[in-house]
């Protein structure tokens, strides 16, 4: 299992039946491959649809039906379309039950930074700020450290924020961490690691809960 599969399998089990879910582009999308049986989710794309299905076969694309990355979609029975004001009304109004986002940095207060690096070209935040601010549950999925081995889970974000105090769960190939008022609570660790290794690779202090840290299942 690579990082995407590990994160995808564990992340998908955070959902409950009937949830309205928005998955960011990249690693977050991988969760959709591992939805447990008996769990039916409604997927939203912020450009204006709920209930989309798999990618269409080649030759059957509808140029008017795409996801937020302009890739062709299909729609399932029971799905619906709406305009952008309604779409972000759903997002900001708390009607989206769960959003899964990638990050550059996340910190112990649940701050997240994923849209700009000062000095580099800023492509824009798109819908990320609204999704991180408005969704009932915000899940961050990420490799535990960056390419240089430095922690991405910090005491305090250094990059400009995408949203303030909004993350509920942080999921990496090493750990599942819950963001609480008392700090980052380590809920689960991967089978191939230790609490000490996870803490060593995390800048913020991890809280070990009284009921113990579980072994992550996939």
């Amino acid at each position: 299992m690579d990082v995407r599969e590990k994160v995808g399998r564990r992340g998908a089990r955070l959902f409950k039946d009937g949830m309205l879910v928005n998955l960011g582009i990249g690693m977050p999308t991988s969760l959709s491959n591992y939805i447990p049986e008996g769990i039916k989710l409604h997927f939203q794309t912020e450009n204006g649809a709920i209930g989309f299905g798999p990618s269409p076969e080649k030759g059957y694309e509808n140029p008017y039906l795409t996801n937020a990355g302009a890739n062709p979609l299909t729609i399932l029975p029971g799905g619906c379309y709406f305009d952008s004001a309604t779409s972000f009304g759903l997002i900001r109004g708390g009607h989206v039950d769960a959003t899964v986002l990638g990050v550059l940095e996340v910190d112990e207060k649940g701050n997240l930074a994923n849209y700009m690096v000062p000095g580099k070209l800023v492509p824009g935040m798109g819908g990320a700020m609204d999704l991180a601010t408005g969704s009932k549950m915000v899940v961050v999925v990420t490799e535990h450290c960056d390419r240089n081995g430095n922690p991405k889970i910090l005491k305090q974000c250094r990059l400009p924020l995408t949203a303030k105090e909004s993350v509920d769960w942080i999921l990496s190939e090493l750990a599942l961490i819950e963001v609480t008022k008392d700090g980052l609570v380590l809920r689960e660790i991967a089978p191939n690691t230790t609490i000490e290794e996870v803490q060593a690779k995390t800048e913020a202090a991890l809280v070990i809960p009284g009921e113990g840290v579980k072994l992550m299942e996939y």
Partner: protein
Amino acid sequence: MAKIITADEAAAMVSDGDTILVGGFLAVGSPEAICDALVSSNVKNLTLICNDTGWPDRGVGKLIMNKQFKKVIASHLGTNKETGRQMSEGELEVELNPQGTLIERIRAGGVGLGGFYTPTGVGTPVAEGKEIRVINGREMLLEMPLRGKFAFIKGFVGDKHGNLRYQATGRNFNPEIALAADIVIAEVDHLVDFMDPDDVVTPGVLVDYIVRRDI
């Protein structure tokens, strides 16, 4: 009755320095024939209000490549590198808005509201210079309405009364943009005599001109 015109006639109404709103999300639901005509007309120093700057060869991106904007108000530029180049070389002013804030500002401009408070952007660079106020225990930013001189929108089906209907995710910014401009020009794939009044998304009274794609 909406007046039926060509894309070139639509483009000819626009003057240097005008503010235009254009529908579409990464060019899906953008009025391509009107964008082409605006490139041909070569009108300059426009201000653009649009979700994004499309692709180099699709949507408003074609006008970016032709350097027709002095300012862009959008939520995302990543699919058109020329926008970033013009921005970083100081040729183009760019104002980035969260997508939900951008569409709501356009809506406020269209429905006569003077602004609104939103939690989106609090604690981020978007909050710089904006009033912050705690409402129901939550920090909120004051965001102001946006309007323009022209709205260029794209319908899937239009009728002779100007009523419009969209298809799938081609709807996006189009319905709100139709409220927020002095002159509204809709490009449509198909023109019919009239439609079921319950099927109308954009009321025909908002649409001044229609550009047909089906002839």
